């Protein structure tokens, strides 16, 4: 005599699936809370888009060695010339509670002890890039294939008193400051 028949098995699987989705819903219950900041600049004859996504809880809780808040900046170059960057000459600031907090672009120079403690691959990931490649015209010249890159900047944790409301990114090669703001609420 069979103890488990096909209808039983379907029911059991359905219950497990429901429970699993409930537990996932609990873990992912904070979805939609991330804050996104966007900005654009003109690079050559195209546009370069910058964006930052911050999850307030993890931003408040997490830090690098207890000294820095890590912010990831995504860059999408849709211009047909490369975007040249320089950790010497570029500046990145966060506006927090009305205060301007300058970020560290080169941990190698600003905190060599911490920097030297990282592995080669981590340093490679965290290093300030030299350039973002140019977009390429797709076949037929009707569209372009953008170049993507993400980079990290470090905000001194002792000066971060809340969630940033705005970021200002000065790129020396463009001679301009890009302001990254949250989109208006109606657009979210």
């Amino acid at each position, binding site marked *: 005599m069979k103890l488990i028949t096909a209808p039983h098995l379907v029911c059991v699987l359905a219950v497990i699936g429901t429970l699993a989705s409930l537990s996932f819903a609990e873990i992912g219950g904070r979805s939609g809370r991330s804050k996104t900041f966007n900005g654009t600049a003109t690079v050559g004859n195209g546009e370069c888009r910058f964006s930052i996504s911050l999850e307030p809880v993890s931003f408040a809780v997490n830090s690098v060695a207890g000294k820095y808040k890590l912010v990831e900046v995504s860059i999408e170059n849709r211009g047909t010339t490369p975007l040249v960057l320089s*950790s010497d000459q570029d500046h990145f600031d966060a506006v927090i509670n009305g205060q301007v907090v300058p970020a560290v672009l*080169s941990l*190698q*120079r600003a905190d*060599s002890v911490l*920097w*030297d403690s990282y592995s*080669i691959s981590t*340093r*490679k990931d965290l*290093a*300030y*890039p*030299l*350039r973002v490649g140019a977009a390429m015209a797709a076949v037929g010249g009707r569209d372009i294939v953008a170049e993507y890159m993400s980079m990290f900047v470090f905000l001194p944790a002792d000066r971060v008193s809340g969630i940033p409301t705005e970021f200002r990114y000065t790129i020396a090669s463009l001679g301009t400051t890009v302001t990254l703001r949250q989109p208006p609420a109606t657009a979210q």
Partner: protein
Amino acid sequence: MLSRAWDLLIGWLKSRQYWASIEPFVIIALGWGGAQLLSFEWISAASPFKPSIALFLGSYMSHWISIGAMGLAALTLLFRSRPNIPLRESASKFRMFWSANRRLIIYRGVGTTLIFAIVALGIHVYAPSRVSHITVRFMDLDSDVTPEGLAYLIYEINRLQQNWYFEINFDPFNQEEFTSGQVARCRDDTRPKLCQAEILAMGQPFIGITAQPLGGALFAEHRGAVSVITTAEQPVYAPLTSYEYLAYCLILQGMSIHLDAEGGLPKDAFSSDKLSHGGFFQFLPYKQAVKSSILAARLTPEEEMLLLNRFGRDYVATCANLLTMDWLYSDRVKGNFERVFKAKLER
């Protein structure tokens, strides 16, 4: 005429009393000569590399044949000699033969083992070495060279290789990745780009390509298993394109790295000299002559000998072929460069 003289010589030798003693050695000597001749013909027929007789006689293959012949002669001598050990005839079984001739068997057994060991050692000493792959990284490139164009050039070089190749690491180079100690070390180094390349190499054979000027050299620097090539002197090698220049430099630096790894790079390689005959490892006393070196690139007989004995026939054949640059100016490669990478290569 020649065969008659030969017959006369052999006939005369056969009439001598000592002929029986020297006969096997004459046969071995004739075999040695025949093997040398056959090998020379084979190497000339089997690859584009055509060595001269003198070059062949100095090569590892000729040495192998000589070592083999000497081993054979030593074995013959061993089995013909019987120092105070009489051979006792024994029609009975193996054990009786062994007990009757033990000393002679041991003498010949030990002698044979020794001769084989010496021959094996000799062959090993003269054997060419295996060469390693070399990683190429674009540290920073000038606007007239694209990574994809340079990658194509390197892949074409690899197509002609049999035993080794250039591997490209496409990771963009960023000095920000270095530790503060590495940055300080290269800042104080008289050859900063070579220093950076050494760090990137992580102990492996490596060639870095940069558009920045080097510390002391105009075109390339080399130390141990690492080289760095610069295109900063582009006006000097113009109207040649950077692709032609880099093809030449990559082949040269590849050979330098392989030779250095084997301790075979000539001591006077690239050392300052006012005279130049266009040799591959020669210093260029007049920088504009780099164009002349590229266009008339060749291996001298000494360089051929060096590479042949270090790395074998295939290696020297490939290098000689690469240096002609005929492959670069073939319709297929030239056409691809013009159509895809917008670079016009003309001879």
